[in-house]
């Protein structure tokens, strides 16, 4: 009897143990044994997986007669896409990739972590080969490398001078605004507005609607995405004042995702300073002028960059919004997660029409928010008709502060860590390489942008027909990307990539008060100005400068110089 019990116990444990290692990523999929299977994992975040599902469907159709496993009798391909948030750096993919079934991934990762751990397959051959030699029925003679933006090509080929991954795409943090609201409520600055200076008031501006004669905007060109939008910080303040007091509109709404607001303000800081100054934060080699004092920035004194003017401007921006109450009362509350904020933003029109609340003009979120909220948009369409489906939203450039230095509109992003790569232990290496190349053809790049709104980091153009089929917001993002500088922490400098979490995290706004603010700790300007009503911009700025001193800098980074 004891033997039988022992055997049963062993069997139960063995079954439970071994069954875990044989997990199929998608058990509800019926495997077609007559075809070769390609398992693909995708981070199921803001952009979703719809575009990849569609790309997979086209790939299966195109390769229905191809043989990737000669001698097995298998013909055609079955692409099995699994979407999950665990397929990412934060999801611990670097620890689990060896046990995952997926042959390849579309996921946000720390590239240097993965590649140095030898987790990724060398794809140098396929990246340097013309696409028409890899992908069936493709007439593109360009290579993946030649299509890739140069800075990403340099980054992804920096390890052992080989490619182990290629970029996917990213979103920018800016002011998302309700175009319909601007159209209806006449919130654009008219072309007939006289020059606005610091003494101008709301009544000095000629406000126009969507069909009015709008001002040129920041780019100075007529007929572009920023027409009628405020250029200077003072204009922006007047716009918020006009909204809040004259139109009963709440200017801002944001979620409790602390990273969104931190990135937003960080983006604003470098919108003021420009790409060159951001590059100083990567290279630590150049001159920055603090006030009137030019200072050589090196790796030894990189902490001084906490004192750049752009950060102070970003703090001013946050302080103005908080101190004047230009925000939705639930903004940043713990219960207001990003989905709730998106819903609240979308529903504010309906609520205002029914006298249940006020409309909200701006949402602080990444460029992926529209795709993320498509379920709500769909529900609104069902409930309220096409008017809600065709709602127009856009991206507004940050206003320019006094002393604006950037040559181009500049945005910071943390989402360019999204990459496409093949698992070193993939069963279907060649098939995975072919699919990877396939997803970088113009056809799929366009498809991806069209379905998700994601801008892929490659050289491709969207036809007029494609653009018209996209939601207004996606069109706006596409247009915005045409002539901007984007800054990010993807760098080949070991000081950066070995400490990416630090620079993308606490370096932005975390510090400890000193002097009058001694004993206080700061983490996010929106939150901290909200909690400490007496906290001034200068106090926060001083705290940042004092907290990041030579001692701390040396302790963290002296091994790099």
């Amino acid at each position, binding site marked *: 009897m004891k033997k039988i019990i022992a055997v049963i*116990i062993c069997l139960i444990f063995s079954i439970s143990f071994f069954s875990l290692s044989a997990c199929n990523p998608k058990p509800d999929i019926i495997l077609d044994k007559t075809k070769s299977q390609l398992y693909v994992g995708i981070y199921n975040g803001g952009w979703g997986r719809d575009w990849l599902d569609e790309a997979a469907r086209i790939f299966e159709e195109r390769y229905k007669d191809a043989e990737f496993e000669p001698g097995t009798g298998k013909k055609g391909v079955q692409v099995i896409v699994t979407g999950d948030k665990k397929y990412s750096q934060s999801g611990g993919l670097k620890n689990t990739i060896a046990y995952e079934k997926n042959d390849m991934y579309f996921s946000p990762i720390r590239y240097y972590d993965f590649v140095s751990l030898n987790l990724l397959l060398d794809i140098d051959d396929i990246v340097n080969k013309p696409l028409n030699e890899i992908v069936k029925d493709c007439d593109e003679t360009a290579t993946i490398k030649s299509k890739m933006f140069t800075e990403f090509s340099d980054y992804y080929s920096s390890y052992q001078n080989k490619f182990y991954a290629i970029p996917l795409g990213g979103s920018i943090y800016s002011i998302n605004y309700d175009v319909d609201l601007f159209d209806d409520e006449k919130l654009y600055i008219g072309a007939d507005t006289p020059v606005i200076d610091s003494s101008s008031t709301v009544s000095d501006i000629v406000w126009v609607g969507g069909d009015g004669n709008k001002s040129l905007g920041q780019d100075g060109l007529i007929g572009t995405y920023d027409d009628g939008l405020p250029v200077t910080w003072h204009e922006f303040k007047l716009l918020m004042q006009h909204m809040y007091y004259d139109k009963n509109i709440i200017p801002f709404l944001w979620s409790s995702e602390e990273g969104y607001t931190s990135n937003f303000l960080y983006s604003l800081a470098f919108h003021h300073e420009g790409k060159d100054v951001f590059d100083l934060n990567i290279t630590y080699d150049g001159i920055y002028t603090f006030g009137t004092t030019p200072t050589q920035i090196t790796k030894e004194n990189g902490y001084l960059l906490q004192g750049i003017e752009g950060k102070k401007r970003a703090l001013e921006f946050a302080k103005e919004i908080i101190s004047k109450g230009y925000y939705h009362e639930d903004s940043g509350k713990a219960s207001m997660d990003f989905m709730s904020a998106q819903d609240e933003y979308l529903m504010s029109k309906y609520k205002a029409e029914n006298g249940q609340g006020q409309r909200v003009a701006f949402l602080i979120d990444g460029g992926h928010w529209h795709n993320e909220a498509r379920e709500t948009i769909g529900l609104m369409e069902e409930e309220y008709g096409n008017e809600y489906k065709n709602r127009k939203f856009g991206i507004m450039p940050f206003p320019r502060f006094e002393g604006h230095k950037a040559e181009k509109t500049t945005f910071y992003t943390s989402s360019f860590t999204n990459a496409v790569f093949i698992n070193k232990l993939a069963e279907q290496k060649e098939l995975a390489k072919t699919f990877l190349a396939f997803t970088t053809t113009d056809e799929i790049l366009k498809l991806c942008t069209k379905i998700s709104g994601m801008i892929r980091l490659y050289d491709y153009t969207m036809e007029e027909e494609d653009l018209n089929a996209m939601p207004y917001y996606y069109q706006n993002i596409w247009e915005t990307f045409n002539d901007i500088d984007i800054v990010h922490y993807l760098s080949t400098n070991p000081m950066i990539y070995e400490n990416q979490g630090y620079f993308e995290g606490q370096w932005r706004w975390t510090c400890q008060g000193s002097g009058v603010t001694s004993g206080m700790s700061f983490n996010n300007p929106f939150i901290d100005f909200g909690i400490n009503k007496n906290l001034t911009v200068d106090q926060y700025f001083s705290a940042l400068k004092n907290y990041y001193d030579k001692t701390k800098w040396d302790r963290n980074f002296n091994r790099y110089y």
Partner: protein
Amino acid sequence: MAEKQETSKNIFECIFKKIKDTFYDISVWLYNCFKRFRKTKTVSAENRSKNIFVFCVLVYPVTIFIIFYIYVNFNSILLSLKEYDYDTGRFNYIGFENFKMFFYDLRVDYMLRYATRNSIFLYFFGLVVSMPLQIMCSFFVYKKIPLSGVYKVILYLPHIISAVVMVLMFKYFVDRGLPSVLKSLGVQNVPNFFYDLNTAFPTLIFFNVWMGLGGGIILYTGVMSRIPDSLIEYGELEGMTMWKEFWHITVPLIYPTITVFLVTGVAGIFTNQASVFTFYGTEAAQYLYTFGYFMFTKVVSTASISGYPYASAAGLIFTLIAAPITLIARYFFEKYGPTAEY
């Protein structure tokens, strides 16, 4: 009619008996058939069987212990002496640099200062408030005060419901419900409970106390129910009040369980993240840090692999501090606490 029913009943009984006998005959026949193959067990064979049984039962947990405790911890010790080299993808020995860095951070890093303060405070709050509350509530449930069963279910409910759901409910209640109530009562400047410097950590403590209450009640009532009724009845005959019963009988008799909680709580100072991650993700403010949360942010989320050796060193230092404190605490709790046997 009754006679007819009696007859059919007898028929069924006969059939069942026949089937039963047939199976018995088959089993006897099978036994005789295979009898010659059966070995008579010797003493050593009996021992071997026992050993195989013990081995089969132990092999799984022992393997798990070796891999996930001994190997992992041994690897952590080695890791704490290394740094990650991105060029080679290997960890290289650098001596005690990670330990030095951690001790330096303990002195100057505000996050760790807050973590120290909060973690110790959490333990003592648990000791002074949370645990007595659990014991008192358990006692009332044990004494079957009116509606004690209902209280038990209500207080245990947070344990049955998913922690994520509870956090969500709590967020909505504290963020939206509570301020509305306070405003309607005329309270001005209702704080943002989750972010205000003065309310954020107390809010988390309240949540933890509330969540811990149900589990504590189940455990303590379980222990209390083992107290002999005769002891209580004797006390009652002597005119013992409920308070005296609690203080002189219940507490001494459940003291071994209390000791276990107190001792494990000491180790918990260095591991308890106090739901900070559940509420704030990876971006909690410094003043909410606990040691558990600090370690969490160093190894999970977007942490780079280069941070692992530092985290290992920190973990090892925590262990070196926690282990003697735990042993000393256990010694004192056992030596100076009330002793009673039943």
